[in-house]
């Protein structure tokens, strides 16, 4: 089953490789991993999307928590949460395709953030499913390249992960 793990870690050199190294050393899956400093510059927030049985997820949580630089780890699947992913898509946009791509982007509430006579760069945020759906809606032949951030998420309501 897919799980989304949210971590607070010390913002120190090498902290990312400790986490990534643990996943590869113990054979755990990483579907995506995203990390950046928080409003408190001494801390980073990392979101890992992984999959496995309940036992495996429990082990992952315990093993990650054992790393010295990890301040907190929470499995967002344990409660209600929101998650978002950002994607940029560069498309070939000429002739009648130009209008068609624009219309599709509008339907998905995507934004065109760069354009030339021949190309668009489209920005889209949402759940992974929504991003997938957008790509399917586009003519495959028109997609030049894509980049995705991987998911990040927060618990809903009063559920706050703090030091």
């Amino acid at each position, binding site marked *: 089953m897919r799980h989304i793990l949210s971590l607070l870690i010390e913002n120190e050199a*090498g902290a990312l*490789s*400790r986490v990534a190294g643990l996943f590869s050393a113990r054979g755990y899956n990483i579907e995506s991993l995203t990390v950046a400093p928080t409003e408190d510059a001494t801390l980073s927030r990392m979101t890992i999307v992984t999959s496995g049985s309940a036992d495996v997820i429990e*082990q992952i949580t*315990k*093993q990650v928590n054992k790393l*010295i630089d990890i*301040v907190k780890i929470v499995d967002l699947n344990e409660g209600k949460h929101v998650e978002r992913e950002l994607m940029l898509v560069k498309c070939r946009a000429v002739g009648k395709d130009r209008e068609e791509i624009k219309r599709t982007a509008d339907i998905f509430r995507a934004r065109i953030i760069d354009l030339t006579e021949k190309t668009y760069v489209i920005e889209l945020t949402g759940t992974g499913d929504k991003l997938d759906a957008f790509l399917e809606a586009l003519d495959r032949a028109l997609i030049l390249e894509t980049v995705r951030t991987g998911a990040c998420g927060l618990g809903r309501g009063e559920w706050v992960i703090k030091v």
Partner: protein
Amino acid sequence: MKLSELPHSQTKSANFAVDKPVVSGEILSGAEILCRALKTEGTEFVFGYPGGAVLAIYDEIYKQDAFKHILVRHEQAAVHAADAYSRSTGRAGVALVTSGPGVTNAVTGIATAYMDSIPMVIITGQVPTYAIGQDAFQECDTVGITRPCVKHNFLVKDVADLAITLKKAFYIATTGRPGPVVVDIPKDVSMAKTPYHYPGSVEMRSYRPLTKGHSGQIRKAMQMLLDAERPMIYIGGGAILGDASSQVTELVRLLGYPCTNTLMGLGAYPSSDKQFLGMLGMHGTVEANMAMQNCDVLFAVGARFDDRVIGNPEHFNAGNPTRKIIHIDIDPSSISKRVKVDVPIVGGIKDVMIDLLAQLKAAEQKPNKIAAWWKQIEAWRGKNCMRYKMSDTIIKPQYVVQKLHEVTKGDAIVTSDVGQHQMWAAQYYGFEKPRRWINSGGLGTMGVGLPYAMGCKLAFPELDVACITGEGSIQMNIQELSTCKQYDIPLKVILLNNRYLGMVRQWQEFFHGNRHSESYMDALPDFTKLAEAYGHVGMKIEKPGDVEGALKDAFAMKDRLVFLNFVTDQTENVFPMVPGGKGISEMILAEDL
């Protein structure tokens, strides 16, 4: 330098804390700060090897006398010796190596300590900060290379961070589930200066180890233990690391239940006691393995259900699906890792044991339902699975270990390497006290025995220290005979020489059609001459009748290292044996063959 001149404290208190901060305000170099910090942490010995990146540190070592530096002959041995110092005393061991090859040589030692949760601080030299990443001479990514085999590691880029980093290193190494911590110090950092301030303690928001167990869980565990009809207590290395042997022993005796020690737990419960069923696992006794498999309540104390202990977890569970398991461990990730646990208790073994003992003593119910279980266990014990055939003409390795026990009155520190001799040492020496059996259980590192014995003998010069080894293992760090000569370390090497990589040969015999692929040790040196060449005493013993006399002679030579080369039976195998992938009740016994 004689042992008697070395700094040494008679009583080793475990993991002592230094709470008063040291603020001198003096402007000190990184190297001076390191030496001061080691002194403050109570370091007695630093095992190391100099090199370019640590020259400034060695210059400061030259000027101080707070701790003794032991110059090994290979960095791997430095880490092993510091590791054994820790295993035998309970305090953090300290090793010091240079950058690049110094570090890569040390990695085997670090990984060995990591697998057995040994508290250590390893100081590594690094190329200067401005040269890092430039493929400088003797540069390697120490933090990257050691990351998977340390509890934590640090690269100190600014001398102002050095003191606090060293404090953190000792704190992390010795608390929680212990482990090795590497501190990588670039050459320019060891030479740069800063005002000296050594903190008395550290607080880390990301690291707060628990020691107290949950009282509700402890109550549940107590009730489960009291209601048991077929209980079994399974004691691992955690009981020794947590200095909880006396509490565990008291609990086992109070309950009157059978118990077993793992390879790492030997000595946690005295092996001569009637309630002790012997070691369990791949080469465990019939009674210990059968009791593990058939019990209704299993109480795991600082043990981790390792593959060499319970074999295949599916067989372990399928054979007894109703078995209830209580597990105490300081590391939550050890709980329900290989085997699902019913009552987990996260905490230090000692603290949990004290609480559990108090609850048990206050309880009105007393354990009284286990007479039938003991009868069953005695029937298993009656198989006498540790029997072996004696011979008048050829030395049996088990016999040497038994005689060693007699000659040393069971009171020696015994180190071993890895292989058949390790199992015979574990099975036949009979350990009565914790921290007397020193071996590489997790990583299974050949070559640890001699440096382990060095570390133990330096820590406890008044005790007999014997290294039980094989002719394969001893040659992996035999250069340390030279270190033993330099510092007059009068340990005894007990070589069980069967001219084979015995454990490899045993597996080839059982599982690979008896094809001895590369397991025969041809062209062995004359060990007597070799020992003599290093300035020690060498003996070759070929007849069973000479074993006892040779051991007595060797241990009578209090101030000499004696290398005893016992020429043993080439065909002897370790029994009982659970083949890999099987359940622990599926043992092969000597009599089956």
